[in-house]
């Protein structure tokens, strides 16, 4: 093994420094891509039963696209899992099923309705009733049922201030809870996924992406997204200054009148709390321009985050994504 000690310093080829730097300067989207692929491969290597959470939203679509890149030409070596609240946009569900079929990926679907029927949670009532909080229970049950030891999610640190302190590899105790004050330090690109029986990890491969990065990447890579991201005609009503979609399970106050508007989704969540924005954007390029000009964050339109200043932190501690 002696020869391993030899240390030869090779000078790079004598090209000008300027040329050299231009040649090897990596653009930020490619650097983010390389980082995310690295993280996804670490998950596949370090865990026995990983899964990738898929909501049908743009972040999980980009994350899945990165997973396909990470293992090409092999298939993605883990299933996708969707927590289905039953309060979906139809287009999202069709998109989900088509994508799984097209890419030969296993799609696990867990229904919040089943959790309700089993009496594990009580459905919220009233006008602002949402299944957003309930889905945490379905998610934790799904993780346990499928014996998942690492669940990847499309959360980004720029979304919300509690997420800004989230790790790439986020350790959860056997109740699935997050302890923000007791997180493992995460240095360089060394991800510690070691755990004891019953514990699991949440992993966030696109932690460092911003909303703008996600849209630019979708444009750059020409990634398919559900049609409801583009402007379309829809029957909507206004609540607390936000347009919401009309749906059979949405209770409306008498004052909330349904009108037809040209709208699109900026994020996709439950129908009950996904605000729609009036827009003219019908192409990806137009969406990117709209995002660049927008002066509010995408979560500013989500009713679930408006509940209290620490709403996200509280939900995350319980096991929410």
């Amino acid at each position, binding site marked *: *093994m002696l020869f*391993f*000690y*030899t*240390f*030869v310093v*090779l000078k790079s080829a004598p090209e000008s*420094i300027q040329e*050299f*730097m*231009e*040649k*090897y*300067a*990596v*653009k*930020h989207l*490619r*650097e*983010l*891509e*390389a*980082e995310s*692929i*690295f993280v996804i*491969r670490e998950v596949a*290597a370090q865990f026995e039963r990983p899964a990738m959470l898929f909501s049908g939203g743009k972040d999980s679509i980009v994350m899945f696209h990165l997973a*396909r*890149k*990470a*293992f*090409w*030409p*092999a298939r993605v070596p883990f299933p996708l899992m969707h927590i289905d609240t039953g309060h979906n946009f139809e287009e999202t569900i069709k998109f989900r099923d088509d994508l799984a079929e097209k890419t030969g990926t296993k799609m696990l679907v867990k229904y919040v309705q089943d959790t309700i029927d089993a009496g594990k949670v009580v459905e919220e009532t009233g006008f602002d009733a949402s299944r957003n909080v309930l889905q945490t229970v379905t998610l934790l049950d799904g993780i346990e049922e499928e014996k998942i030891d690492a669940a990847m999610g499309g959360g980004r640190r*720029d979304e919300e*201030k*509690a997420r*800004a*302190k989230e790790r790439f590899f986020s350790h959860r105790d056997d109740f699935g809870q997050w302890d923000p*004050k007791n*997180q*493992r*330090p*995460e*240095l*360089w*690109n*060394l991800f*510690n996924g*070691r*755990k004891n029986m019953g514990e699991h990890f949440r992993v966030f491969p696109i932690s460092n992406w*911003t909303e*703008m990065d996600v849209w630019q990447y979708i*444009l*750059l890579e020409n990634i398919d997204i559900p049609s409801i991201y583009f402007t379309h005609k829809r029957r909507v009503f206004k609540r607390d200054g936000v347009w919401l979609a009309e749906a059979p399970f949405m209770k409306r106050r008498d004052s909330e009148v349904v009108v037809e508007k040209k709208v699109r989704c900026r994020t996709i969540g439950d129908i009950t709390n996904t605000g729609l924005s009036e827009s003219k954007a019908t192409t990806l*390029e137009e969406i990117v321009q709209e995002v*660049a000009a927008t002066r*509010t*964050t995408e979560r500013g339109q989500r009713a679930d985050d408006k509940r209290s200043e620490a709403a996200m*932190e509280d939900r995350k501690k319980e096991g929410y994504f």
Partner: protein
Amino acid sequence: MRDENYQTQSQNTDGYLDMELLRFTTAGSVDDGKSTLIGRLLYDSKSIFEDQLDSITQASERMGNVETNLALLTDGLRAEREQGITIDVAYRYFATPKRKFIIADTPGHIQYTRNMVTGASTANAAIVLIDARNGVLEQTKRHAYIASLLQIPHVLLCVNKMDLVDHSQQRFEEIKADFEKVAEKLDISDIRFIPISAKDGDNVVEKSEKMTWYNGPTLLHLLETIEITSDKNYTDKRIPVQYVIRPLRDEYHDYRGYAGRVAGGVFKKGDEVAILPSGLTSKVKSITDFEGEYDEAYPPMSVAIELEDDIDISRGDMIADPKNMPNATQEMDIMLNWMSEKPMTPGAKYIVKHTSSEVKCKITNIKYRLDINKLEIKDEGVAFELNDIGRITIKTTKPLFWDSYKRNRITGSLILIEEGTNNTVGAGMLIDPNE
């Protein structure tokens, strides 16, 4: 060939696809005006959205502040807002037409040394803040030392609160001279000095009209223009194998791709490579990803490499250059930062995570602990406690393939994990005895 995607972009949306990524760290306490500085950078570069501003304006009013407290933008967790402190590393994002930035925002007090080390580990640049009234303090030395230890290539020394010393050039020069004396003991390749007032915005984004004696760039201009490409290692070819891709499909029956992120050097098709630990050699057959082949692979790309010969390779192996191999030893010296509340147990076994390999190790010799406020050796042979930094020797059950941290931050770094709890308890930087 899709290599052009790594260089120039044809479908240019306001230059967005043509931007580089700069990661920088800020260490400082509330008193230094660190949160105000970050708030100022975000605010003046128009990276704060209306609803974010509304929410912190409301929060400021509730807390009885007269002006909107920009510091609230960065203090995310409930405990931090209640106690008015930053207890962890928070990551912030903003972009200008020239670059995208990731800020690792860390607390500055000595009890948060481990958080500063964490934030510094991935940074290309560090902002060190000095209060112009106080000058170079122990904590300035500490922050500069951490930047030096973690080999952050660029240190931007901001002398803040210049408004409170009458924007005095003489005061700025004094502080600069004091800091240069400290820096002599350190290993920082590029130091810049900027007189600023974060509260008023002087020399942060806009040039100050009150300090016309300062001809240098503003802080944001520096962040946008300091050269970072050449900070990476393009000399020593290293790919730690992360995962082996076997499609098990008819059309790719014989494909076997070694997946990993290039840690150093430039790999080209046809290059001769050696695999560690076997020492066997082969040639690069292809460098691929999703839809195509690349001519070259270089840091920080994540790629899959096929080799000409069928060699048994698995996770933890290293692909390198037969003429320029990493060290392969079972005993090595590291500079260590202890990160656990529980003190180190000399002689106990820990797990080492280094590139894609995991082995057990024993701490065989504790050389010294540093006093990082005074930048001198504190004691020898004493077990490390939380936040301690110093030099130790470890012995591993299998050889690691490593370079000195000075030479390569990826193949030169490791973490120590405690068995049982599985907590990350130490961060180590490898030292080459011949350097």
